[in-house]
Structures are given as structure tokens and as C-alpha cells.
């Protein structure tokens, strides 16, 4: 009883804080003299990436399956969500609504949530159909299967004439007027969904079901022997991740107001995988940090012109070489993690010098031994 009350208070406080931040962000966005449009855009994209990366971590991190087609689910969510808000408005409301700034907060939020739900369900359904047979496969075969699935989704999107084909979709023309994808996504919803997904993941990790996921990662045969229905858990993780990714896609498309096959390509899936592995496979905090890092880093390097992507790829390689287990390993940021950092002399500067020392040793040693 007391716990429920505390939880309700925490949720209410979070919603209130996010709502307050939303006011700040929209103020920043709408005042051109502050030049904050670009940073706010990066912030939104980073939060959407967080949602997608944390969901992928459920499959690749917790359950130890290797999906490389997550952008397909993201894309299915984006395309379905956009189709709903553009094509179905007329059917649902009798006339074409100019959903956006003019309509009320409740209506546009409601439509956004509906789009997320439908996009997520479409992705989850596809995830179920794809996952049920393919999760019998192990390791690299599953990986390549999901790559193949992603490629097929991209080809279908390329040939979807009703939604722009290869050029991408930003709305339909009725006469000369463009019925665009309505700008429904606000900081409030993106942040709230991101927080919800993170909390859900961390709680899941501690729950019985989360332990079942992790036991499959550690040893599938042993898990099976302990009576864990492995196929059911694998499909559950896959479908749940697909649902969240689909919802993230719907959020994305109502923020960017366009989606094209390039946005859901296999390269984007690879990017999600890199976020999760870089942060630390199986760590929710890692997925969050990885997603933020990989969204912000390419933008932060922008002043280097065409060298930006070269520097980015070198940083990626070096990071993996010095820290193969990812930034966080499997740890979560929390009390235990903090204590571990403080113990001994492992402060951040000490760690950095330690890494450089070990890298140096590695090269020096090789030279000596050869």
C-alpha cells in the first residue's frame, strides 16, 4: 500500500518535471533569437535513438540473440504511423484535421499515442511472424536472417508508390495542397517514453522474466533444462523490442515529418547495434549512453568538414580496442557501480591513463616479442 503510493508520487513527479522541461524546450525551439533549434533537434533525435537502442538491448543484450534488422521494425512503425495520421484522418474524423499547433494539446497527444500504438502493433506483429521461425536459428545465422528481413522491408518501402517510393513520404497532395505528416511529437512525449522504456527495462532485468532472458543468453541448453520455455521467451523479447522500436519510429516520423527508405536501411540497424555494443551489451545504462554518444558525436564533429566521418570511425575502432566489453560492460549506473568506481584509485583520469598505458604496453610488447 505504502509502496504503491510512493510509486504513484514518483510517476507524478516525473511527469511534472518532464512537463516543465517541455515548456523550456518549446520556448527554446520557438524563439529564433536563441538559436536553439539545432541543439533541440539533436536532443530529440538522441532521445528517440535511446528508445530504439534500449529496446534492441532487450534482444541483443538481455536475451543474447543477435538481431541486426532493428531498423526494419523502426521503419514499419514510422510508415504505419505516418499512414495513419495522413490517410486515416479523413476516415476517422470525417474531414482532414490540421493536427498540429492549432489543435488542442489533448487531441494531438491522443493522435500521437494512437499512431505509436498502431505503429508499435504493426511492428510487433511483423516481429512475431519473423521471429517465430527465425529464432530457431543461432548466432550469425539469426543475424543474417534479420539483415535479410531488413533488406526486404527496405525494398518494399522503395516500391511503395502510395508512400513516395524511394523518394520518401512526407504527406499526400489533395489538389495542390499538401496534407503533410502532422508535427505531433513533442519533447514531453519523447522524454516520457524514453524514461518509461528505460525504467521498464531495468525492472525487467531484475524480474523473474528478465532472469529467464539472461539465462538464455548465458546457456540456452541449461536454461531449457531448468524448465524455461526458451523459444517463448526469445519470441517475447523479440516482439516486445519490435513493439518499442515501432513506437520509436512513429515518434520519429511525427518529429522529422518525413521518412524515406534510407532512414530504415540496414546501415541504420548497424548503427543501433553499435550503440548497444559500444555502451555495453546487456546494460541499459550502456544502451542509453551509447545512443546519446552516437547521435551527438557525429554532430559534434561537424566542424571538421568531410574529415568528420573519418574521425568518427577511427574513434569507434579505438573505443572498441581499448574497451571490448563496452563502456559499462554489463553494469548499470547505480549505487554499486558508483562504489566500484570510487574504490581504489580508479577515478576517471586514472582510468584514462590506465587505458593509454595498456594500449602502449600492447604495442610495445608486440614489438619486443616479435
Amino acid at each position, binding site marked *: 500500500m505504502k509502496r504503491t503510493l510512493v510509486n504513484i508520487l514518483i510517476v507524478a513527479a516525473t511527469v511534472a518535471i518532464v512537463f516543465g522541461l517541455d515548456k523550456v524546450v518549446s520556448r527554446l525551439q520557438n524563439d529564433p533569437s536563441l538559436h536553439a533549434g539545432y541543439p533541440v533537434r539533436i536532443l530529440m533525435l538522441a532521445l528517440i535513438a535511446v528508445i530504439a537502442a534500449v529496446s534492441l538491448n532487450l534482444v541483443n543484450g538481455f536475451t543474447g540473440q543477435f538481431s541486426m534488422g532493428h531498423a526494419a521494425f523502426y521503419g514499419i512503425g514510422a510508415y504505419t504511423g505516418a499512414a495513419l495520421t495522413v490517410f486515416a484522418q479523413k476516415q476517422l474524423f470525417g474531414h482532414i484535421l490540421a493536427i498540429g499547433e492549432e489543435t488542442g494539446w489533448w487531441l494531438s497527444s491522443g493522435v500521437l499515442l494512437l499512431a505509436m500504438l498502431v505503429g508499435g502493433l504493426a511492428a510487433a506483429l511483423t516481429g512475431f511472424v519473423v521471429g517465430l521461425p527465425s529464432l530457431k536459428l543461432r548466432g550469425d*545465422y539469426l543475424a*543474417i536472417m534479420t539483415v535479410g528481413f531488413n533488406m526486404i522491408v527496405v*525494398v518494399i518501402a522503395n*516500391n511503395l508508390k502510395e508512400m513516395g517510393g524511394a523518394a520518401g513520404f512526407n504527406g499526400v497532395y489533395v489538389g495542390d495542397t499538401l496534407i503533410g505528416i502532422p508535427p505531433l511529437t513533442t519533447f514531453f512525449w519523447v522524454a516520457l517514453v524514453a524514461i518509461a522504456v528505460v525504467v521498464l527495462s531495468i525492472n525487467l532485468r531484475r524480474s523473474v522474466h528478465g532472469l529467464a532472458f539472461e539465462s538464455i543468453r548465458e546457456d540456452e541448453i541449461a536454461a531449457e533444462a531448468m524448465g524455461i520455455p526458451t523459444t517463448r521467451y526469445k519470441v517475447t523479447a523479440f516482439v516486445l523490442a519490435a513493439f518499442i522500436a515501432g513506437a520509436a519510429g512513429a515518434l520519429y516520423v511525427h518529429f522529422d515529418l518525413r521518412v524515406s527508405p534510407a532512414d530504415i536501411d540496414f546501415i541504420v540497424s548497424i548503427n543501433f547495434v553499435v550503440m548497444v555494443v559500444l555502451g555495453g551489451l546487456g546494460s541499459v545504462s550502456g544502451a542509453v549512453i551509447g545512443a546519446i554518444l552516437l547521435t551527438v558525436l557525429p554532430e559534434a564533429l561537424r566542424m571538421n568538414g*568531410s574529415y568528420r*566521418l573519418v574521425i568518427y570511425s577511427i574513434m*569507434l*575502432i579505438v573505443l*572498441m580496442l581499448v574497451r571490448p566489453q563496452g563502456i559499462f560492460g554489463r553494469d548499470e549506473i547505480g549505487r554499486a557501480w558508483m562504489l566500484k568506481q570510487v574504490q581504489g584509485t580508479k577515478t576517471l583520469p586514472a582510468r584514462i591513463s590506465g587505458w593509454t598505458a595498456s594500449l602502449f604496453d600492447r604495442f610495445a610488447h608486440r614489438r619486443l616479442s616479435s
Partner: protein
Amino acid sequence: MQHPFEHFLQQIVFGLQAGSTYALIALGYTMVYGVLRLINFAHGDVYMVGMYITVLSVRAIYLHHWISPSWEMLCIVLLLSMIGCGLLGVIIERLAYRPLRKAPRLAALITAIGVSLLLENTGNLDSVFGSSPLTCKDVLPGGHTDFNIGGVLIERNYLVIFVATIVLLAILWFVVSKTRLGRAMRAVSQDVDAASLMGVNTNKVISFTFFVGSALAGAAGCLFASMTPNSINPYIGILPGVKAFVAAVLGGIGNIPGAAVGGFLMGLAESLVVAYGPLIHLGNGYNDAAAFAILILILLFRPTGLFGRGITEKV
């Protein structure tokens, strides 16, 4: 208008031509996977570098009038890009994969992706290859003449690609099955630790594997760039790379003959979908999907590929 059966044979010819490239690239994937259990994502980009080596060296040859288009010229650029790509492969393995040999497998996969991005983005710099598409000047005189064999048209250049592929496959087969180094390679792919206990220098063998695999990708790049009219750009290696990997999986990854067969099957499937897809209302661009759809079907019914052996998991 061709007779329907001639039309079909024509598609088979096209498929074998496209399949040659896939087979050569797929071999590199499968060999590296065999010894390291690593999906070498940078392999498609090594193929791209092979194309650039060819195009740029052909340009240099034309500029200085060293030799005119001839078989010698083809041999020279082929050797150049094979050696160049082979060395590139060895360097990549040394710097990016070897330090992670004992690390979790996914870490090496991420560095492979990093190397792939590095090659693409470095190639895209104006000071390296530049982002504007390039085409290759003629390497063989009159290569675009067609042979007409019973109503089926075969361009001479494409015949060169096909024959060169078969020759390279034969050489590879000889190296892998008849030489000491080849035997060492097979030993390492069966069990790295046991091979090393038997006195095999595993590092040397792995370097050699990367050299051979990348040299084959270089050969594929050279043949594709110099024999077909396609223009090249630094990102051209991605899609053929992924498809060749699929071809390797199709044949059973780690299995060398399987990769070659998988490559040819992939090419055939694509050309048949291009030719007959419109009959069942599949638009342009579905040839990419067809390859993957076939892959998914095969994996569902034969999860270890066509020629892969099932691995029984020990508890």
C-alpha cells in the same frame, strides 16, 4: 525477339556473370569466418578499394602511355589490385582484429563495422578517391563485342570475368587442398587451439587467410571495374558485400566450395527475378529482395546452409 528458351538461357548467362563477382567476394567472407568466426564487415569495402586501384592505375597507364589496352594490361592491373587488397586485408587484421582475438566476438564485429566506415569515409575524402563517380577506360581492346552462341549473346568482357573467376577458384582450390599452408588453414578453421598445439603458426595462417580472401575481393573489384561499364564510388562495396555474405551463408559459412556455389546461385536468382519478376507484378528493384527471400527460405529449412555441416552442441 528471342525464343523463350533462348531468353531463359540468356538470363542464366547474365546470372553466371553477376554470380562470378559474388562468388569471389563470398570466398573472402567464408575463409575469414572459417578461421576467426568473424563476419568481416570491411570485406565489401576491400572490394571497393580493389576497384579504385584498378581504375586509378589504368588512368596512370593511359596518362603515361606505358602500354596500350591488351591482355598484359589486364594482368598487370589484376595483379596490382590483388596484391594491394591482400596487403590491405593483412593490415586490417593486424591493427583492428588481432588485438580483440580473445575479446567477446561482438567487439570484433563492431571494429569490423568501424573499419568498413573508415574505408568508405576515407575513400570519400577529396584527397583520396573523392566522392564523384569514376568509370574505367578500356583495358581490353574490343571487349564489348558479343559472341552469339545459338541465339544467346555473350559479351566478351563478361566471358573474361567468368573464365578468370573459374581460374582463380581453381588456384584457390589447389592452395587450400594441396599445399602445406592450405592444410594449416584447414587445421586452424577446425580448431585454433589444437592447430597451435600441433605447431601451426596460427598468426601467420590467419594473416595468410586474410591476404588470400582480400586478394580475391581485389580481383573481383578489378574485373568488375574494368570489364563492365558501371561507374564506381566509395560506397559501392556495401550492397555487393552484404549480398556476397548472404551467398556465403547460403553455401554454409566456413565452407569454401559452398561460398562459390552460393555466389553463383545468388547471381542466378537475381537475374531470374529481374527477367521474370514483372510477370508476377514485381516491380523494378525487387531483385535485391529476391536474394534475401531465398536466403530466408533456405535458412528456415536448412539452417546451416546448403553445404554446411550441422554442429551438435555439447553440454
